[in-house]
């Protein structure tokens, strides 16, 4: 039964997307039907994921509830799905993040139905990716997940062809780079390869570097570490749709997840010498992001910098020579994605309303008490105050990074500090009443639905602070 549930969770959004495609727009051009279908599908899936959690042995550190679908194209003729605490936590947080993104769509005009349709497709592919149990399924969803997002960026968000093509080219390059090692491994082994066994595979001496480099580059292109960061920073600056922005910022988790699954605790000789280089590249990117986030005036730019600093922190955690961090990364990432998606929802609203102001957005939160409350709480959680699971799991992650390399760890904490400072400064600026001019156009607060969503997210975060898996019985 739980095995079937797994397949339902993967493919329910796909079925939902068909309903969205078939739905009619309202007379005024809005897509309430499509929105309702999307919200209900995601809510149902969240309930199913919670049900899956209760069937899971949370102490077991391997993929469980393995279910298989026959498909003649796949090696061995099957697609395998399975899950564990890490993947379920990520899937749950992605569902909640996309739900928040849908709530944020209220401020956006344009082809909402198209966005919602593609969004459910994206949800199917990401869920499939994080539940993939064998290498082929993993690779297939790794490739598939870029398609709906590419279409969202290009067709629906007004970001322009140039941005969409840049997004596609970088990600397509990543998929090609992953194709080579995947094909090579299948050619060598000729059996179904489960991803949790990937680090146990014995590779011939001369092919190790080739295979590991391909995997590394493929995942790093998704994350993206300097000098591969440009595609995502250029895409993020032009996106004006909170749902697409959320999706684009969720994509890098696929790279991070790839590293978590494939990065062996005991490193093969071929890549062991390169680890310090990877780590230096990571902290260089973190520094770059922290400085640019601090100097930038835009809300979304700051948010983008903040999100990627934390992704890279988790990547450093994965690189550290210990296996115990997987659980902490899962808990922290869960809280982090909730915080980030809540912030995206509010920032896009504040950004839109601030266009009505004559000079800057400073002081705007004084006119939006509900947004101010939610945003302040989310920032407190986001900068690492003890109101969510982010706090002490990050403490553990940072302590392991420091244990492995003090310099890298210290720079990582410095970048976290800079990110926290620029977010906090931004919050104070937005709440500074003295910057507001009289006679401004009417500024609207977030509606009750978004306020309720923000409050629920905060409650979930706080409960996760007390006990990360509070919803598991």
């Amino acid at each position, binding site marked *: 039964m739980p095995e079937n549930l797994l397949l339902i969770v993967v493919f329910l959004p796909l079925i939902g997307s068909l309903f969205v495609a078939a739905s009619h727009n309202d007379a005024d051009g809005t897509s309430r039907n499509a929105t309702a279908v999307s919200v209900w599908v995601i809510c149902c899936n969240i309930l199913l994921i919670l049900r899956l959690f209760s069937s899971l042995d949370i102490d077991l550190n391997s993929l469980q509830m393995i279910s298989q679908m026959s498909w003649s194209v796949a090696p061995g003729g099957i697609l395998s799905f399975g899950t564990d605490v890490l993947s379920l936590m990520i899937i749950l947080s992605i569902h909640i993040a996309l739900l928040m993104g849908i709530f944020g769509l209220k401020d956006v005009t344009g082809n909402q139905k198209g966005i919602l349709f593609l969004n459910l497709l994206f949800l199917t592919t990401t869920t499939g990716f994080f539940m993939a149990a064998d290498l082929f399924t993993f690779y297939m969803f790794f490739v598939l997940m870029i398609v709906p997002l590419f279409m969202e960026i290009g067709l629906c968000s007004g970001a322009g062809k140039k941005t969409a093509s840049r997004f596609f080219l970088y990600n397509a390059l990543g998929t090609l780079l992953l194709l080579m090692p995947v094909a090579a491994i299948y050619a060598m082994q000729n059996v179904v390869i489960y991803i949790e066994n990937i680090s146990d595979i014995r590779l011939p001496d001369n092919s190790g570097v080739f295979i590991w480099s391909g995997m590394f580059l493929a995942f790093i292109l998704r994350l993206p570490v300097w000098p591969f960061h*440009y595609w995502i920073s250029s895409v993020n600056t032009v996106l004006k749709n909170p749902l697409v922005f959320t999706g684009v910022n969720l994509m890098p988790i696929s790279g991070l997840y790839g590293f978590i699954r494939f990065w062996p605790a005991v490193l093969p000789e071929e890549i062991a010498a390169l680890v310090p280089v990877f780590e230096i590249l990571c902290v260089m990117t973190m520094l770059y992001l922290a400085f640019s*986030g601090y100097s930038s005036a835009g809300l979304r730019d700051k948010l983008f910098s903040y999100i990627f600093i934390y992704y890279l922190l988790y990547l450093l955690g994965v690189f550290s020579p210990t296996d115990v961090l997987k659980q902490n990364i899962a808990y922290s990432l869960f809280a982090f994605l909730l915080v980030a998606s809540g912030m995206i929802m509010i920032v896009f609203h504040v950004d839109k309303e601030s266009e009505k102001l004559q000079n800057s957005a400073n002081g705007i939160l004084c006119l939006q008490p509900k947004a101010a409350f939610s945003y302040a709480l989310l920032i407190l959680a986001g900068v690492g105050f*003890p109101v969510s699971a982010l706090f002490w799991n990050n403490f553990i992650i940072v302590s392991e990074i420091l244990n492995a390399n*003090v310099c890298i*760890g210290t720079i990582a904490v410095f970048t976290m500090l800079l990110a926290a400072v620029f977010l906090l400064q931004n919050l104070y600026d937005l709440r500074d009443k003295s910057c507001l001019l009289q006679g401004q156009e009417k500024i609207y607060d977030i509606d009750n639905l978004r306020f309720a969503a923000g409050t629920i997210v905060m409650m979930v975060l706080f409960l996760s602070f007390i006990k990360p898996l509070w919803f598991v019985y």
Partner: protein
Amino acid sequence: MIVNVVISLLILGALSLWKIRQRYNNIFVSGSFLFVAGLLIYFIQSWQTGMESSFFMLWDSSASGDIKIAINSTLQNYRIVFPFFMIAVVALFNNLVFRYEKKKKAFSTLVIFILTSFIMLISGDNFVQIITCVFVIDILSQMLIQDVHASRRYGIYNLVADMGLFLVFALMRGSLNNLNMDTLTQYYDTVKYKDLIAAIMLVSLAIKFGFFVFHSYLLDLKSAKFHRLVLIPYLSTPMVALILFIKMRMFLAESHTFYLVFNILLGMTILWGAAGAAVIRGLKEKSVYFSMMIVALLVKLSEENGFVWNLSFSWLLICGFLFNICIYYLHYYANRENNLALLFRRQRKISLALYAVCVVAIFLMMAFSVCLAGFYSADTALWIYGFALLFLPTAANMFLQTIKNVEQNTDVLSAQTVDRRPLPMLLLIVSLSAAAVCLNDASWYPAIAAGGLFVVLMWIRPQRWLIKDSLCEKMQNADFFSGGYNIIIARPIKFIGRVLTLLVDFVFFERTLVSTVMLSAGIVVRGFRQINREGVLRSVLFVFAAFLILAIYFLRSRV
């Protein structure tokens, strides 16, 4: 036992989150004061029994280790908790009698939660519990300050300090692979990165204490309400720093430079505090400068006393807080005017109230001196005498200058009767001062000497000749340290960020890399188009190319 107190306070705090009608607020505030005062009595009774116990609760466990909530009821913890408990009770009573606080219930709730966090910080023995309590006290203090301008730099400075502590604790946890502070002795043996830890701890503690160079965020508190401001130095971040300093003392001792720099900072803080308290005209700013002086002295005395927290130390802390309350009531009866230069004449009765505050201050000075005498030794003599030399004339000048300015101004405004509500508070200060004198087994001579000297100094006011008006004028709005912070830290970071964005993203990627790729792709496409056009020469070229490939293939296969 301390755990019972914590549970009771948490229940009270949780109850106070319940929203009630405005008219019942006073009942709640009175009830919460009585309840906490009752808890204080229970706390003292438990302390006197001398029983020690420990309470543990598993918060969470993971592969990285168990996180426990520990509340240890040891005699040392009782001694440390006592002054904060007393300060919280006095603050709750002050809230009860104070008429200008609109959110009395919220204020009481915050004080209750801050006290609870303090107790958990003091009695905690693992890194996560301690750092959590530090962060929680910071958040609650920000809520206590309430004002956005006042809390802006307060929040950012404390965040920097907290992240420093976070880094130090994470470093220790990483090395020890254990979250418990008991294992610190192992770390003490190996002492890895001792200078790094000492440097980070020094900056973090200096920020939290509000020491010289790092104190400018405390001056921003002038935008906050006065009765909230007086609580910050004694029930907030500076005291968190004091507790952390005591908990971490053994590591810091390993670094030779730490105590040298730390003591220089202490001395400079006392000097700068005295200068600021003497020169600046705002009573709120004076209160901050006096607190800087007192906190710095307390830290020095604690250090010289081998970090033993005795009763005299507790009463010294309480007296410091009561002195702040006295400044507040000076401000209150001076028509709540912050700037001493702008005080205007009120009717005679108000001056009488101001005189009453001065008398209370004399009692307080006596209590302060008795507590201080408990720490007198050859090592501390210089610090104690130096402090007294700076503190007494400055404080005396402030009290009498307020009265003089009120009386000398000829503008007569409408009469107003004396507000009698604060009088019980002044009586409480006198009672607590008397308790401080009686409970300390020290001689009465310091009390008589300090009281007498204070009266004489109020009469002479030596600072009126020492401090020139022109100097005062220049110093009023000068903020050297925030300017330095901008020049040394904020602007360079912004500059680097902008240069990096411009250089890396725009120049390197957009203009160089992407443009080169696009250009190369264009050249290739154009080249292929050219080749694929109709023409005899191109056909010959293609045929020649095909033959070339065949020839190469043929030659390679032969080899």
